[in-house]
């Protein structure tokens, strides 16, 4: 009996330890950044611990958009000029498949479970639904004009696209691949990011220099937050949104409770793609003009490191794994 209780306590202790570890770590840690270098026609794989490029992969076609499969095994790269979706085996660090898609593929996002990849086509004004296992294009969903950013809710039910030249966010039902609604946002929405709870979406509006905050359930804009000039994309970490401002060479930091800008961090020139470490410690920013991936420490609100990458990094999408 005594031994039994002892074992029980030991098991409970282990469970508590595991739980606290899981809470501290949040989601699984990421170790690498996959940065699309548009001018260089390459993909830089950056080891986050050392901030060094560990591999450069030839892509071609002026790569811009990037997404990762949920398990981190595949990276999906769009090449707008090559009109291709390129599937990269992330562990082997090589191109696994090239798929012709549309006329100007740009934003890309991966579904959490069903293996589908959503590609926003700038010129065709559609979202192409590509099966990552077979490399075939299934549905083509008509959205607004020049869709750029695309994102999937964590439960996999909805796909949202930022339709830049319609000033609108389209809602697509992932089960039927039909557009089920739209919400007008600020001018020229480009990047779109959904929070981990699937409650809100954030668009960076290049034309009106602000961020639209959408409540996904109601489809309503709940706030519009002014940021710096030419905002491009949004990352979420530590209860804050981090917004790259291309012309201001800065990152605006929005407190998600008050929906006010609480800080502005100066970064290198022409910041574009931005993504957060899932545990919220760091945010990584691709600086297009300076060929750099900078690391922002979320607690310190300061740049604490940088990796030199290829020419013209855009990293438009979720580029960490």
């Amino acid at each position, binding site marked *: 009996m005594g031994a039994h209780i002892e074992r029980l306590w030991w098991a409970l202790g282990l469970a508590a330890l595991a739980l606290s570890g899981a809470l501290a770590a949040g989601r699984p840690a990421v170790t690498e950044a996959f940065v699309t270098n548009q*001018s260089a026609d390459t993909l830089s794989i950056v080891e986050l611990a050392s901030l060094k490029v560990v591999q450069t992969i030839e892509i071609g076609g002026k790569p811009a958009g990037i997404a990762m499969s949920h398990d981190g095994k595949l990276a999906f790269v769009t090449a707008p*000029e090559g009109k291709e979706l390129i599937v990269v085996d992330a562990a082997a660090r090589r191109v696994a498949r090239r798929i012709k898609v549309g006329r100007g593929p740009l934003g890309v996002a991966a579904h959490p479970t069903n293996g589908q990849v959503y590609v926003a086509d700038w*010129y065709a004004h559609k979202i192409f639904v590509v099966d990552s296992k077979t490399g075939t294009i299934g549905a083509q969903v008509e959205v607004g*004009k020049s869709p750029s950013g695309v994102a999937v809710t964590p439960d996999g039910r909805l796909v949202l696209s930022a339709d*830049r030249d319609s000033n609108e966010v389209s809602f697509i039902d992932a089960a039927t691949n039909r557009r089920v609604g739209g919400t007008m946002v600020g001018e020229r929405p480009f990047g779109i990011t959904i929070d981990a709870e699937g409650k809100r979406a954030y668009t960076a509006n290049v034309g009106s220099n602000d961020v639209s905050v959408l409540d996904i359930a109601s489809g309503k804009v709940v706030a519009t937050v002014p940021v710096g000039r030419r905002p491009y994309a949004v990352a979420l970490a530590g209860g804050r949104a981090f917004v790259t401002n291309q*012309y201001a060479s800065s990152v605006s930091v929005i407190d998600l409770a008050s929906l006010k800008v609480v800080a502005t961090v100066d970064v290198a020139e*022409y910041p574009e793609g931005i993504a957060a470490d899932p545990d919220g410690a760091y945010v990584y920013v691709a600086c*297009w003009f300076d060929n750099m991936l900078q690391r922002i420490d979320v607690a310190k609100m300061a740049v604490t490191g940088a990796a030199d990458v290829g020419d013209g990094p855009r990293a438009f999408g979720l580029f960490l794994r």
Partner: protein
Amino acid sequence: MVRALAFGLALLALFPVAASAHGPTRQKVTETVEINAPPEKVWEVIGNFQDMSWHPAVAKVEGEGGNAVDATRVLTLGSGGTIAEKLLKYDPDKKSYKYEITDVDVRVLPVNNYSSTLSVKGEGGTSVVEWRGAFYRGFMNNDPPPELSDEAARTAVTGVYRAGLDALKAKIEAGG
């Protein structure tokens, strides 16, 4: 003028999205020049947003707002074309300013969505002036004609920067 207008209207009719869309590949150009003069002296020449008299292609500048953010200027070129620009950032401590083109005919400069930074760094009697630009080509859809291609845009911007920087060096080193 009528021909220019007709050309513009024809382009618009053919490509209705050209005015607002944003092609997929942005270009960049960086040009520098080393000048045998202290950076303070170089900044005195280039640091006024309303004065481009150091650039040989610019015949006249008319503007409003001085060196305040959102100040505007219209450059009239010796060749007759005009370029309208707006000041985005002005940092006299870093001896740097950033501006964008708000209006230009692609036949004057074959670019879209152009922004640029002019800065001077250095110490003692030597300066390095850097002029950087980010822009899209003149033709905003797929398959551009050669005169509105990426290469044409880069060549044109490089030419503007080179002419300006080389003239600036000559002017300052001659004691101007």
